[in-house]
């Protein structure tokens, strides 16, 4: 029998959702454990036994010196590192507060300085090279399952290259941008979420980050302007989840 791959989950600063989502795989988690052995996963186990990992999943932004040290450790000790979730790939909402760290800390903690060595929240991809970037706030759990299975089989996982709109159309959801005039970022956002927000009749908020390549953010901008949304609103909406690009 083949040895199981050693899997680590490292959580930097985030909401815990990307780590939690792995536990939400339920029975599929047990399928995964046929091929992987978890040797580091702070939220789920008190064991911490690895110094070498075949695959490391890193979630969250680098927001403290502690996060940065942990990230470097993860990178140095892993073969294949995945930036998991929009915090790790694009900075997500916590990376979108556009003030210098000193001012942010002052607003929260007063004049007490920076005793805990906080840094401006930036995605993992700003600091280290990653082998794969899987966005989503949170990412789709089926997707991480597939990626881990691919790696185990020696296949390079495929990155989605189509916008949310495609999945919306495949599900035959009504277009909320055209029909309801809601601000929907589906046309310019990475697909892979199965257009879950449009399923609720609401606009895509762009939580998987902007799709690069042949998309047309200028066109989206014009549509939203025509619908009556002001410049500031549109710009903030565009930048909420993605100030950085992997």
């Amino acid at each position, binding site marked *: 029998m083949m040895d199981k791959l050693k899997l680590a989950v490292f*959580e*930097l*600063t*985030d*909401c*815990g*959702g*990307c780590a*939690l*989502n792995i*536990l*939400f795989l*339920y029975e599929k988690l*047990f399928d995964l*454990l046929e091929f992987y052995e*978890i040797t580091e*996963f*702070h*939220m*789920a*186990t*008190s*064991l*911490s036994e690895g110094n070498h990992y075949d695959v490391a999943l890193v979630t969250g932004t680098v*927001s*403290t010196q*502690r*996060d940065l040290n942990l990230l470097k450790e993860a990178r140095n000790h892993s073969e294949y590192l995945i930036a998991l979730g929009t915090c790790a790939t694009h900075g*997500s*909402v*916590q990376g*979108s*507060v556009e*003030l210098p760290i000193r001012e*942010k*800390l002052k*607003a*929260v*903690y*007063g004049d*007490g300085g920076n*005793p*805990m060595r*906080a840094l401006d*929240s930036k995605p993992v991809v700003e600091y280290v090279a990653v082998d794969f970037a899987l966005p989503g*706030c*949170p990412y789709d*759990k089926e997707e991480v399952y597939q990626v881990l299975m691919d790696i185990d089989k020696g296949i390079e996982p495929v990155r989605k290259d189509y916008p949310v709109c495609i999945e919306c159309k495949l599900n035959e959801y009504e277009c909320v941008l055209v029909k309801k005039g809601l601000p929907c970022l589906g046309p310019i956002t990475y697909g892979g979420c199965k257009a*879950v*927000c449009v*399923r*609720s*009749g*609401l606009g895509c*908020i762009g*939580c998987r980050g902007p799709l690069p390549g042949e998309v047309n953010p200028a066109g989206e901008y014009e549509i939203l302007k025509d619908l009556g949304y002001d410049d500031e*609103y549109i710009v*903030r*909406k565009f930048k*909420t989840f993605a100030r950085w690009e992997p």
Partner: protein
Amino acid sequence: MIIEMREFTRVEGNGKAEIVIEDGEVKDVRLQIVEGPRFFELLTLGRHYYDVPDLEARICAICYLSHSVASVIGIERAFGVEVPGEITLLRELGLIGELLESHALHLYLLVAPDVFGYPDAIRMATKHGELVKEGLALKAFGNRIRVMVGGREIHGINVKPGGFGRYPTVEELERVEKESEALLRLARRAVRLFAQLDPYGAQARHFVATDGYLWGERLVSDEEGAFHYTERIEERSLVYSFAKQSRYKGEAFFVGALPRLLLKSEMLTPTAKRLFEEHREKLSSGYVSYNNLAQAIELVYALERANEIAKTLLDRGIEGENVPVEPREGEGIGYVEAPRGVLIHHYRIDGSGKVAYSNIITPTALNHAMMEASLLEEARKLYGEADERAMIGRLEETVRAFDPCISCSVHLVKF
């Protein structure tokens, strides 16, 4: 001398503690929240109210719906919007789904391994597979309700000021009615399991909860009279932690499942109430570790209440209409019981519908002082008696009893 506890495991987020020993005695304990600050209040400033609940949901994955609902209620109160019973019941159902998902995660996957002596639930599953499966079944049911009401398992955007993007179908509600009844047996078994454990941690002297079971217009405590948080709760910054500490009239206090049961047992459903009465003596001792037992009783409450709500909605039918929301200048506070305790979202909104002031206080921040007090008490009991590893293990269990959600605690702002 300082004994350093490494970062806590089987909790959400990153925290650790230092135990200060002087002259052979435990002098002090410092609970350090090392999770980075996330500045959520700053993030929402100047934002249009409609987008705010979706952003606030991202404070926490385990209790995103509590944040969405607290945010929506805060906004609606600022605008003087009232929603009909149908919408209120659906929000409550969502919070119940979250309670089930979160308590099941905590009790079965994070605490149970301590009870049976395993490092985690995956390794525990080899011998206690049934129990782990039961926990996962409850958790999955809670998540199905979250998908139905909130839009997805984590960070859904379906809960909106004035109503919902999408309303549940009759089939979905029928499924909730059936499944909640079928799962009740498992929850009752959890109560038996967690009732057996010996107490540890401190005995809390003050308890705080919302005045309704899962949300309210104001807060209540073990003393008389409902109140707003600004009247009796104060926060202060610490040099060693990214989370602030809150105090009730200057003292440490407890929010969570145990305070809810103790302050609001008359609101419980029949079986939950009977189980509460059966264990009342234990629970009334106020030991923080009985929060685990209280959570187990709340699993029973949640299943019974989900069943009631589903029945009520099926009887009267769902209209699925949102209340129109017109922004106006105003101020509002949303008080919700997140699974791990009181959650406060406080906003001021300007005439154009943009957030001008925002303050969020989460249960883990409210419990911070109580967690420290519990660690201190437990460390004093164990130092010199147990070996250091056993002591640290028990201290970690003491923290775990609060079901802390450390990520959520780190973004408080005052202007």
